[in-house]
């Protein structure tokens, strides 16, 4: 499964409680769409750290890295490449 698919499944399963892929667009802002809150984003960070073996620093916790499936995918791939 690609990073994008893994991340999509995690968000759908744990925050939208559905298998319906159309419930989440890759560009949807987690903040603006009310998909995640401040604790939810931490759970996502723990998930990607464990799943992809990367470390997210405090200064990397910004919307450009984390606030949609698109942003998360790009961030994870960048971190994996740099590891």
């Amino acid at each position: 499964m690609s990073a994008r698919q893994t991340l999509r499944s995690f968000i759908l399963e744990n925050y939208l409680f559905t298998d319906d892929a159309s419930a989440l667009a890759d560009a949807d802002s987690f903040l603006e769409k009310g998909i995640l809150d401040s604790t939810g984003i931490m759970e996502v960070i723990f998930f990607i750290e464990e799943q992809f073996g990367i470390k997210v620093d405090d200064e990397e916790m910004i919307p450009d890295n984390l606030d949609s499936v698109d942003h998360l995918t790009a961030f994870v791939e960048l971190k994996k490449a740099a590891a």
Partner: protein
Amino acid sequence: MSDLLPQRLLAVATQYPERCAIRQGSTEISFGVLAAKIRALDAALRARIEPGERVALVMENSVDYVASCYAVWLSGGVVVGLNTALKPDDLMWQIEHCAASCVIADTRRWQELDARLPERVRACSIVAGAVPSVVALDDLYRAPFVDVAPVVISADSPAQIIYTSGTTGRPKGVLLSHGNLASNIVAIQDYLGIRADDVAMCVLPFFYSFGNSVLHSHLTVGSGLVLENSLMYPQTVVQQMQAQQVTAFYGVPSTYYILLARTQLEGADLRALRYCAQAGGAMDPVRIERFCAALPQLDFIVMYGQTEASARLSWLPPVDRQRKQGSVGLAIPGVQLSIRGEDGAELEAGSTGEVCVRGANVMLGYWQDADATQQAIRGGWLCTGDLGYRDADGYLYLIGRSKEMIKSGAHRISPREIEEVIAAVPGVEDVAVIGIDDELLGQSIKACVIASEDDALRRQILRQCREHLPLYKMPKAVDFYKEFPRTASGKIQKHLLT
């Protein structure tokens, strides 16, 4: 009348027209421009509302919210800021409950409400954004200036309804007068020493009384506000505090827990920050000290209040923070505190009872709920439902709440509302919702369910909650039980559930 908030803001705008009033992202607006928006909107509202009528504001913290709030007041209307996280059914319940004549909403909320509003309300309403066939705020701001005669408002005039979670499920509307708000705001400005050259960051929603008090206590002395509408990315918040040279910051315990856990406070240049103030529930003293150790130059101020008291009741002067650890301090100017026993008699120092308060800041009552008002205000004293005692020096310590309520982040949540949603799921025999300790939120929500343990049912429960409840009311855990501990009369003993 000149001491009331709208007049104070307009006076400040005349005094400091060029000074920055609100900064939000790349938007910056001066007091002069803000006042012009308020006056333009006031003129437009005269054709829409009569004095005393309610106007529902359904939008995030923004320049538009502030302009709308003050314009409604100048028009003699009553501001009803609604919780933007609510689902449309709950928003509509509040709009109907307060019988709002007009709604001012952002585009997203308007789209949720549009088809549900009665035509007479829809026809008067205004959108912050662009929606075909609905009047836009921006067009009203740009309309040619019309000099309208001021509406006479007095200290007794109703100014605001703030909905709070009720223990019985439906929220209650706290009705505050202009005098309530002005007296409390002036007291806050006094004890915090808020100055015109302060810059405050507000991460708290204006639709709750804490955020509401931050908004008015700063703007009405000419102090600017920096708005950040989410703590989801806390490092961004710290970067803004640094970039905007923020001098005052406010939060609930979870605000500070999140900043401590997920940002590099020690590395940030926050020299301009002169104080951080905390209210909204008891904060862990160990983490207060950790926060102060990370930012030793600032004063950390613990406060206590209630929506029914406009906002603030007591504060712990920073010099007393360690000496009186765990205390919420002394009554603020204009407020009398009394600890009362079950018979209503005042108790001596050291004895625990209900915290009762009196002052010009105590609400007019609950909107259209005379029974609840009579229960809350007895003999001129507001009975807060909080339990506490005063030490020999008069410092107040809170030890709990006499009413069942979950405090999670900045929210007070009635378990009953969540229980009603879960009880409707087929397969659930009984449910009890409780607050459990949470490292960041203070409390998080746990649903205890009597049913056969089943992952599909757990998922169905969470899906039902997601559909009917805002995100902050979502249970973080769903656990299954065979039976609940109960009293002899059959009442669930929630304190035994963990």
